[in-house]
């Protein structure tokens, strides 16, 4: 007798590089898992914003799912909607952004945004010792706020100073624009914390165009394969990166499926900390087949 | 004479309503064929069918004895049939020259040849006796000028049949005279002219034959020789129309109700002063562009203006039309389609728009009261509408004028300013409107009539002020009222020429 299980997966729509990666990994994992466990059905749904995600959660639970894997837009906003799903007896796995009420989540696959900022800040302080950096912020969200605050905290007490910070929406074009303007405004910039690999790519083009050699390096984040490749290849401008793998959704889905199909019930928190990727360990983070 | 266009038994229905029933018409080369009838008789509808704007519900047309049907006005134009619309159909954002050549631009090396088009425009407009700047955008022109542009546009295409739908309604004698010259020249060239007008003297002067419509049916087609205006009116209205103007009510009292001093509207009116007495019908004459419209728009707060207005011995200033209305002054625009009525809304909405607060019960509109008011207005002003849920834009031109009158009279004004009250109105209705104006004066209202029809000013007013070029050129007391005198003041040319203009036009 075959066991049938439906897992609903609710994630943000592919609106920038990292979430694009999440969608990709979710879909790949869904295909993989359905092959591995006959009887498993995985339904992946994306939403463009918090309210829409709350809607999608309602709609998913209307379809009678056994488990929910959710990467919430925003912890505050989605705590309640996820609680509603949980009330129906659904097994809940939360990814990346923990809910306000931790009792809701059966499994928590945690990303660590404060750590992401801290690692980047520490790298800056350690390599530069003294100097000026500019910051690129993402989209105004808690994630971004946590990253930036902790980055700045990590710089405290070092000789590294923040010259400027602006929003560039995790977008290459905006980063290019803002970097051009930074270059007009600041005669000497030692390093750039782009805080995201998409933005780092825009920054690099602007630096290349301006032919400015005061900028020693650009630090991105998230672990996009092109950037990891450059770290591996020893690109001077990209000496390092900070990991924040979108594949964490796949991990979460795998663990959740295992909960139903293996004999070992899974519970608890799996932390995927932000790691500093340098030439030494880049190989472990390089997945040439990934879309991200 | 050969017939160019023959229509047999044309009928046209809009939904369940038949507005034309079995009308036949036979148009000969080189003739000027007038079509007359009351407002809503179906004249414009007939013209629109003949020129391809509408398809008849039944009936056939023969062009040069061959059965024809036009799917669009463009097809009709290709056959040489053009229509000068009663309403203005021009693109407001394009210039005069661009409108004239719209859809048939002159080209040079693939590009539009603006210089050539401008030149041609100037020539055609000069033939019409006007010097409108070809580079002005239509939206800056007065209605009269727009009408001239529209006529010029029609004359620009190669034509065998030209239909004029009330071309002179918005024109003053001088322009009208140039138009008649053109009509005569067209007919000499063998062009057949269809001519609609409510000015029966005009018809007598220019037409060869006359077709009369009533309620969508053909009443008669007659040679002009045997037909005097009085008889035309009788055929149209179905009753005797010997007396057009009412007795002037002897109501103009001595006490002044309103004094206007040093009124100036930038670019249009320069330092105009006048007084208005209680119960008086005061006329304002002048040529197109004299600034009469602007003067009164400035007065009631619809335009920026300077000057002092004294009403009942108190100085007042009107911020907007609402404010003026609250003081008992209403202004009826000459541009009834652009500024008078909401063409896309129904009659009820239009009727009560200016006085909605009278039709509310608590915070809500009392639709029953509105309906009653509409019934009353339809009766009082003889608005010919076959369905009361029609949109205002579907009324015939003259009936729109009556609706506008009814709308503004709901405000129970003390001073009524009517700009071109009988523009496009049939003779029967005209008489009704005149009687209405006279009765207003009898009830103690003061009425200001702005009119380009001198007969109207003479027949109706106690006193006439004539404007020229933004100033008052002179005042004519009742005893001195004559066409010569008005034309003289309006144009400033000396008297013999003025007499000629006045005589040439009736």
């Amino acid at each position: 007798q075959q066991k049938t299980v439906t897992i609903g997966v609710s994630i943000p729509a592919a609106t920038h590089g990292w979430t694009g990666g999440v969608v990709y990994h979710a879909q790949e994992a869904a295909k993989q898992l359905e092959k591995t466990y006959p009887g498993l059905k995985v339904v992946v749904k994306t939403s463009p914003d918090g309210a829409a995600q709350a809607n999608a959660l309602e709609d998913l639970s209307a379809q009678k799912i056994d488990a929910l894997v959710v990467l919430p837009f925003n912890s505050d906003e989605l705590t309640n909607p996820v609680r509603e799903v949980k009330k129906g007896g659904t097994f809940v796995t939360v990814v990346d952004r923990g809910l306000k009420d931790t009792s809701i989540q059966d499994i928590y696959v945690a990303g660590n945004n404060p750590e992401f900022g801290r690692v980047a800040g520490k790298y800056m302080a350690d390599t530069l010792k003294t100097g000026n950096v500019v910051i690129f912020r993402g989209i105004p969200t808690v994630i971004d706020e946590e990253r930036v605050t902790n980055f700045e905290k990590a710089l405290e007490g070092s000789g590294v100073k923040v010259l400027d910070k602006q929003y560039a929406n995790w977008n290459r074009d905006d980063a290019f624009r803002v970097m051009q303007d930074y270059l007009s405004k600041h005669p000497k910039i030692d390093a750039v914390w782009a805080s995201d690999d998409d933005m780092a790519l825009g920054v690099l083009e602007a630096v290349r165009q301006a032919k400015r050699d005061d900028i020693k390096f650009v630090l991105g984040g998230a672990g996009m394969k092109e950037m990891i490749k450059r770290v591996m290849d020893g690109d001077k401008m990209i000496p390092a990166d900070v990991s924040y793998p979108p594949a964490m959704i796949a991990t979460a889905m795998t663990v959740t499926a295992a909960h139903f199909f293996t004999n070992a019930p899974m519970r608890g928190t799996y932390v995927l900390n932000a790691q500093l990727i340098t030439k030494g360990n880049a190989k472990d983070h390089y997945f040439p087949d990934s879309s991200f | 004479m050969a017939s160019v266009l023959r229509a047999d038994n044309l009928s046209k229905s809009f939904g369940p309503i038949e507005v034309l029933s079995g009308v036949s018409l036979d148009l000969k080369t080189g003739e000027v064929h007038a079509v007359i009838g009351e407002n809503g008789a179906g004249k414009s509808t007939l013209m629109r069918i003949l020129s391809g704007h509408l398809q008849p519900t039944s009936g056939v047309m023969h062009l040069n004895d061959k059965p024809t049907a036009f799917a669009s006005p463009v097809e009709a134009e290709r056959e040489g049939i053009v229509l000068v619309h009663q309403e203005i159909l021009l693109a407001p954002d394009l210039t005069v020259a661009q409108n004239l050549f719209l859809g048939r631009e002159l080209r040079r090396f693939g590009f539009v040849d603006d210089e050539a088009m401008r030149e041609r425009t100037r020539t055609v407009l000069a033939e019409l006796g006007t010097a409108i700047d070809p580079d002005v955008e239509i939206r800056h022109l007065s209605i009269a000028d727009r009408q001239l542009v529209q006529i010029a546009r029609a004359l620009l295409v190669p034509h065998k049949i030209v239909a004029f739908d009330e071309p002179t309604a918005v024109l003053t004698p001088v322009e009208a005279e140039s138009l008649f010259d053109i009509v005569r020249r067209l007919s000499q060239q063998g062009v057949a002219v269809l001519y609609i007008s409510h000015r029966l003297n005009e018809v007598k002067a220019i037409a060869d034959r006359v077709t009369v419509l009533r309620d969508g049916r053909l009443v008669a087609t007659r040679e002009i020789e045997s037909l005097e205006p009085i008889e035309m009116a009788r055929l149209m209205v179905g009753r005797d129309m010997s007396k057009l103007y009412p007795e002037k009510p002897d109501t103009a009292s001595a006490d002044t109700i309103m004094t206007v001093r040093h009124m100036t509207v930038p670019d249009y009116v320069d330092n105009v002063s006048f007084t208005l007495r209680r119960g008086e019908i005061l006329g304002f004459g002048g040529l197109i562009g004299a600034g009469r419209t602007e003067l009164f728009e400035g007065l009631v707060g619809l335009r920026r203006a300077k000057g002092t207005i004294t009403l009942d011995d108190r100085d007042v200033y009107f911020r907007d039309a609402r404010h003026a209305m609250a003081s008992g002054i209403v202004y009826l625009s000459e541009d009834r389609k652009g500024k008078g009525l909401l063409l896309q809304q129904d009659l009820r909405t239009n009727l009560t728009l200016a006085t909605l607060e009278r039709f509310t019960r608590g915070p809500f509109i009392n639709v029953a009261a509105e309906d009653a008011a509409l019934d009353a207005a339809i009766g009082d002003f003889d608005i010919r509408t076959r369905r009361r849920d029609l949109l205002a834009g579907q009324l015939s031109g003259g009936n729109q004028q009556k609706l506008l009158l009814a709308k503004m009279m709901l405000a129970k004004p003390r001073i009524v300013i009517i700009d071109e009250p009988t523009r496009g109105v049939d003779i029967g209705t005209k008489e009704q409107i005149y009687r209405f104006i006279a009765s207003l004066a009898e009830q103690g209202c003061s009425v200001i009539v702005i009119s380009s029809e001198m007969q109207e000013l003479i027949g109706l007013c106690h006193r006439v002020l004539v404007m020229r070029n933004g100033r008052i050129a002179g005042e004519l007391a009742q005893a001195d009222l004559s066409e010569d005198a008005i034309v003289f003041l309006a144009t400033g040319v000396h008297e013999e020429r003025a007499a000629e203009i006045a005589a040439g036009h009736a």
Partner: protein
Amino acid sequence: MTDTLLRTAAAKRMFNPDMRALSPFIALIVLAILGAVINPDFLTASNILNVVTRSAFIAIIAVGATFVISGGGLDLSVGSMAALVAGFTILTLNNGGAEISTLMLGALVAIGLGAACGLANGVIVTFGRIEPFIVTLGTMGIFRSLIIWLAAGGTITMRNADLRELYRPVYFGSIAGIPVPIVVFLAVAAIGAVILYKTAFGRHVIALGSNEDVARYSGVPIWRVRTLTYIIQGICVGIAVLVYVPRLGSATPTTGLLWELQAITAVVIGGTALRGGIGRIWGTVVGAIILELVANIMVLSNFVSEFLVGAVQGAIIIIAMLVQRSLQRGR
């Protein structure tokens, strides 16, 4: 004679339903059938109630937009305005205890701030005589920035758990089996319909949208009327926020993103003309439900790749409009 003619014609019109007004409803029914075919879970009462409940925010905002648009205006700022009002309201709630009076104060703040934002839009549009598109695009940026600043780039959350419980029923509760948001939006639509169709002000809005000159020459106080349409829009945003806040309990800088496009779309689908002069409150409400329904069908259906959801959604909306249009022409 004319009289009898008139009356029979009016009577006949009664039996000739106005297809333009009906067609959004027909499109709604067609979509519902489509949904039922795609997934049998679609027609469950709980799903339908969910969908209609969710459409409440947009529907309420779109009722306001119907006023602005049928008066010849446009308001692109509603989404940002909603975020700003939500943020402010939550801050107010955080300052009070877990009492009904706190909620009342919050409601006052939401509606007052919404009205103030609308007033700002209205005043700039009328007195500055600038295209509403530009004005409200500008205020859209301003409101959005203010919420980012208020939240310092993060989130504004209701901190008092008891107060949240007290407030919860406004989204999750129901009156006589009907979820509260549905009751609210029906009430808002009904009041909107009464104002637009039964009062002098509503008549003036339509007149203004039909032809501003005619309205002006008829003594309609066009500045006041136009400004009021924007204020009504603001109040509707305030009401929508009051229903929204208990659901997620927080406001973020991305709250309300693109709601303006959804609201305008709902209005247009409902049969209101973007150029003004025609306003259909009930059509608008149906339009908002249609939008939410399409999104719901997308989630319930399992044939469409995640990447292509937007494409199918766009196509359905266009097809729905084509169907409507052909219905109207068919008569």
